[in-house]
């Protein structure tokens, strides 16, 4: 519907307008010409903002044509060329506007009689559809005058309208719905394209703002019903089906899209770089990615091989390169080592000047390197180098991934502050992408990962209010049916689990294990072992841990291996096998150091110190502990800090020669410092509401106070202990048996 633009231009040339208004109108021309079709209401509004006078003139002109007869439109077109033929006008023949005008005129002159009539009809429809449903509040004055005329001159339209009202009540629901949707019925080519582009963009960048899957599906069906050849709609259909994990429909739409693409065909028969040979290759590749997404690795593999073969046959290096990067992704997903493939891919991508693929490969390499314990500075260097590349090519997506990756790596190394900083950096960074449709690109995987880390970091510090806010945001941003939703689901479950475990509510933690297992099997097993250990079913726990360790060692999951070893050591303690725990712990320590996993290393040291304490060398234990306390206080969770403090206090007490029930010759100075340490620990534990530990702390406090002769404080601590003991009901485990 370009007639309004034409009318606008005509009015612009015909009337005298002030300079600033003219400027604003001039600015409007290009978007109108190239943008999607507007409804009359929108159009008039935009023009009115620039120049009310012109808007009124255009409205009048359109009204004249729409409510008049066919001859009025014909007259309009016949007078149209006159203002543009003059040499001195700004809209000279070869200008953008001039070309557009000539184009329109030519198109108009080519129309057959019936087509002209049809054009006129649709102009009327366009005009009247605006006034049929007037905007609330401002009923245009024109309509009131014209209703008489309507009835006489254009019987058909009015008849239609009456019918519609009459019809709507007994109509079948489906038909009704198609009547009421905002973009109902046939869209013009441009409107359809705009709609598709917009929805696709939203799907990629902020799914929540896109139409709901069902609504979008309906729109697409509608569109395809009117024009089955509209291939892009099939592609959007595919994306939409992926959203709801519908393998059947998405495969169907994908293949349909490529069938259509092939035949809409880039002048057909050539099998080379252009033409449909190319789309064939990408069709196979897309199919591979589809299967990959749904976890059908074998199918994906077959499809990928097919894509590779066809690409090889036609020497399409770019496509091959894409295939290669999918290949290593696939290998990685299958859990096998794909370092060599990735390295090859990076080299080739660099050779063919595909920066995106190259740095994607490097990022993948870094990830693999991190899990395999490559030296940290090399990884960081690699990331830094790729970052330079990203900024150079403005690959904002990769910048985000890179930031998310650094967050994860820092977190893995146990540097929570650095990790926090990187996460904030990503979240506060303004995107390089142009902000379209009022949407910032923020529902990519990178954002999900970073937000999850943020939530976990907050949980570690016991800030559960903030955590629930972050999780809430994640839930809104990544609804449960979407691709990255599993990330926050797992994260949420883990946090809840930890919380329940800390608070000693094992019965609440247990049901979460099943949910965790559904999302991540290894994690689930580990958690199960923890619960079993907590409720003293040691044998079962031990079996699970053994099994888990074997599996983790196979998949090179170092972090989990160390955690399992620590748990095993704890099990040894319970059977007082402190000397048997030692080698396990030392092994864990070696592993952690080798992989630069500082947090796990310090936790292991904590375990070691405890073991030494139990073995009767508290001086040694205190020494070892001093080494670990610093990183723990700097980076670790509140729980760990508390445990470390408690342990330190106990070591100090032991060193001071303090024995329960027996006031020997204790070193009073050391005892006092132990008291301080205990107070600190108590503060940490109460922050987490960890009553069991608090009970221990109070017990020790009471004893210390008594030995120092501070009866009042001693009684107070004893009372606190008593209160907690009553509240907890379960008998306290022997203090000696746990960290």
């Amino acid at each position, binding site marked *: 519907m370009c007639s309004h633009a034409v009318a606008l231009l005509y009015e612009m040339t015909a009337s005298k307008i002030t300079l600033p208004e003219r400027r604003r109108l001039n600015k409007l021309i290009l978007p109108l010409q190239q943008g999607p079709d507007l409804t009359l209401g929108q159009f008039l509004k935009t023009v009115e903002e620039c120049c009310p006078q012109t808007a009124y003139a255009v409205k009048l002109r359109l009204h004249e044509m729409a409510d008049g007869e066919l001859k009025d439109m014909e007259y309009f077109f016949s007078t149209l060329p006159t203002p543009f033929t003059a040499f001195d006008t700004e809209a000279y023949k070869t200008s953008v506007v001039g070309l557009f005008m000539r184009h329109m005129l030519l198109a108009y002159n080519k129309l057959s009689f019936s087509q002209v009539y049809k054009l006129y009809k649709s102009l009327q429809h366009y005009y009247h559809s605006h006034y049929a449903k007037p905007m609330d509040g401002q009923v245009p004055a024109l309509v009131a005058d014209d209703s008489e005329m309507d009835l006489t001159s254009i019987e058909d339209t009015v008849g239609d309208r009456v019918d519609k009202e009459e*019809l709507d009540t007994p109509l079948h629901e489906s038909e009704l719905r198609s009547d009421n949707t905002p973009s109902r019925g046939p869209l013009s080519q441009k409107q359809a394209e705009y709609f598709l582009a917009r929805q696709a963009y939203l799907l990629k960048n902020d799914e929540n703002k896109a139409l709901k899957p069902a609504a979008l599906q309906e729109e697409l069906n509608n569109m395809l019903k009117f024009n089955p050849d509209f291939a892009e709609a099939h592609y959007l259909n595919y994306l939409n089906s992926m959203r709801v994990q519908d393998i059947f429909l998405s495969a169907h739409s994908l293949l349909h899209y490529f069938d259509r693409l092939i035949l809409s065909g880039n002048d057909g028969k050539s099998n080379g770089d252009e033409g449909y040979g190319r789309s064939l290759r990408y069709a196979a590749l897309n199919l591979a990615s589809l299967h990959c997404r749904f976890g059908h690795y074998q199918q994906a593999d077959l499809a990928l091989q097919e894509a590779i073969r066809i690409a090889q046959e036609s020497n399409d290096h770019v496509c091959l390169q894409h295939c290669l990067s999918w290949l290593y992704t696939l290998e990685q997903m299958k859990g096998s080592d794909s370092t060599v493939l990735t390295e090859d891919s990076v080299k080739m991508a660099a050779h063919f000047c595909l920066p995106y693929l190259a740095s994607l490969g490097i990022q993948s390499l870094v990830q693999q390197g991190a899990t395999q314990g490559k030296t940290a500075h090399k990884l960081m260097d690699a990331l830094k180098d790729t970052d330079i590349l990203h900024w150079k090519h403005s690959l904002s997506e990769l910048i985000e991934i890179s930031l998310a990756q650094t967050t994860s790596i820092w977190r893995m190394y146990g540097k929570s502050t650095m990790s926090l900083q990187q996460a904030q950096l990503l979240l506060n960074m303004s995107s390089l992408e142009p902000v379209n449709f009022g949407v910032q690109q923020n529902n990519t995987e990178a954002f999900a990962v970073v937000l999850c880390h943020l939530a976990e970091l907050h949980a570690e510090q016991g800030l559960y209010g903030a955590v629930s806010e972050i999780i809430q945001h994640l839930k809104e941003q990544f609804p449960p049916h979407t691709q990255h939703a599993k990330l926050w689901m797992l994260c949420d479950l883990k946090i809840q689990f930890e919380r329940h475990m800390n608070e000693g509510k094992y019965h609440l933690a247990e049901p979460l294990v099943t949910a965790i297992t559904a999302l991540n099997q290894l994690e689930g097993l580990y958690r199960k072992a923890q619960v079993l250990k907590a409720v003293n079913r040691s044998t079962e726990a031990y079996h699970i841990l053994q099994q888990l360790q074997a599996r983790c060692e196979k998949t090179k999951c170092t972090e989990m291996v160390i955690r399992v070893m620590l748990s095993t050591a704890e099990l040894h303690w319970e059977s007082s096998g402190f000397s048997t725990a030692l080698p396990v712990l030392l092994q864990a320590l070696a592993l952690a150091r080798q992989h630069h996993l500082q947090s796990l290393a310090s936790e292991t040291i904590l375990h070691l110190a405890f073991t030494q304490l139990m073995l009767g060398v508290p001086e040694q234990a205190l020494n070892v502990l001093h080494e670990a306390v610093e990183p723990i206080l700097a980076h670790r969770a509140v729980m760990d800090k508390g445990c470390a403090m408690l342990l330190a206090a106990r070591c100090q007490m032991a060193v001071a020669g303090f024995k329960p029930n027996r006031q020997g010759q204790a070193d009073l100075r050391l005892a006092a410092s132990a008291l301080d340490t205990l107070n600190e620990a108590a503060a940490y534990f109460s922050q987490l509401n960890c009553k069991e530990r608090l009970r221990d702390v109070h017990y020790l406090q009471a004893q210390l106070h008594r030995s120092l002769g501070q009866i009042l404080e001693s009684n107070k601590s004893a009372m606190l202990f008593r209160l907690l003991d009553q509240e907890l009901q379960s008998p306290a485990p022997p203090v000696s048996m746990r960290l």
Partner: protein
Amino acid sequence: MAMFPGLNVPANSGSDHEMEDAQDLDALTLAKSYFDLKEYDRAAYFLKGCRSQKAYFLYMYSRYLSGEKKKDDETVDSLGPLEKGQVRNEALRELRVELSKKHTAGELDGFTLYLYGVVLRKLDLPKEAVDVFVEGIHALPLHWGAWLELSNLVTNIEMLKSLSLPDCWIKDFFMAHMYTELQMIKEALQKYQNLIEAGFSKSTYIISQIAVAYHNIRDIDQALALFNELREQDPYRIDNMDTFSNLLYVKSMKPELSYLAHNLVEIDKYRVETCCVIGNYYSLRSQHEKAALYFQRALKLNPRCLGAWTLMGHEYMEMKNTSAAIQAYRHAIEVNKRDYRAWYGLGQTYEILKMPFYCLYYYRKAHQLRPNDSRMLVALGESYEKLSQQAEAKKCYWRAYSVGDVEKMALLKLAKLHEQLNESDDAAQCYMLYIQDIFSCGEQLEHAEVSTALRYLGQYYFKNKLYDEASLCAQRCCDYNDAREEGKALLRQISQVRDQIETPSADLFAPLSNNNTPVRRVSPLNLISFTP
């Protein structure tokens, strides 16, 4: 669109109706004449005031047809590509309003109910349409048009069973028709047989339907015989002749096809069926451009003609124009999603483009639609084989054999697969079954590879030291040119080995040489000697 049902159906008795009829007679006759001249608007205009049922039906029907005609005309000069699918019959909504009012008032007779149903169907309201058609059928069971419209809306057997239809003899026709549509050929044939016995033995309609049914289960000879009979009884018939030509095409009966084509052109050359027959004729003569041209013409005559789209796809395939072929097949699927040939054709196209994994999807679709058609299974098997998914391929081939392999290729392929995988026992068994299969079907197939099978079996028996069987196979090998040398070599080897272990073997050859029909011989022996 069903033909105009005619006005000579006896009207309801009752003086009121007769009175009305008499009053409207002039207007009705005038309008009928206009209607016959396809001046629908004019007919409708003169019928506006009439009150009789007949006149009312003609009035509404004219309006409906006028809308349809205008829609068709519109399609020619649309303003843009996206508008192509948007042309609608504008009269439908008005008709629906009026008819639904009358419907609730219970004033509709059988014909107008039929029209109401058609309008509903055109408005994409299938559920309502089914109800109205059933009602219409109850009101006027002998109106075949309503039955036919209903048959288009029934999608599965459960739905068919749930319909409450009047118990009239015409219901049997409908059921038989439905069974054919739903590919339940056995039941359909039974129904038609019953109808013939009940006194419809001379009906050409039934003969043609039976022939089509046979065509659907690929019983080509039966179908051909029936069609020939049909042509004798009804020489100027054009309906169903495209199916006949398909059969002739499959059988490569060039002269017959050419005769048929010439004959049909003489009767009416602007019929879809005629164009299809000519297309088939050119296709058989390997003039694929011309064939495609005629299929295109058929599609111009009726764009919703499913068969033509698929056939055109085949022609483009022959011309190696894969993109056009894909286009044609996709169109066919658009017209009818359940067209297995189009899905199969798409699969073939991608197979030709060397995308075996990609074509799997299409073959699977086709297989879903025709679970018992061996061709799809064999195609699936081949694709799996190309993807080195031998286990899947084996399953497909075996299933293809089990459902009755029409091309007799599945076993051979299965055997070769086993041979590749060094599963010699299984391979031998398959080859043997293959030989039995080939000989039991009697006729000689062109691609038959009996010699390959015999050669392998000979070697297999030889390795397993079953010299009697081995020598038998070797001798049979000598009947085929391509395996003669090997057969002889094997015989020599056998006799050498036998000489070494000094077993007399002369008496074994004696009966063999007397018998010169290989068919009778191979199968019983194999059956006895080899049971794995």
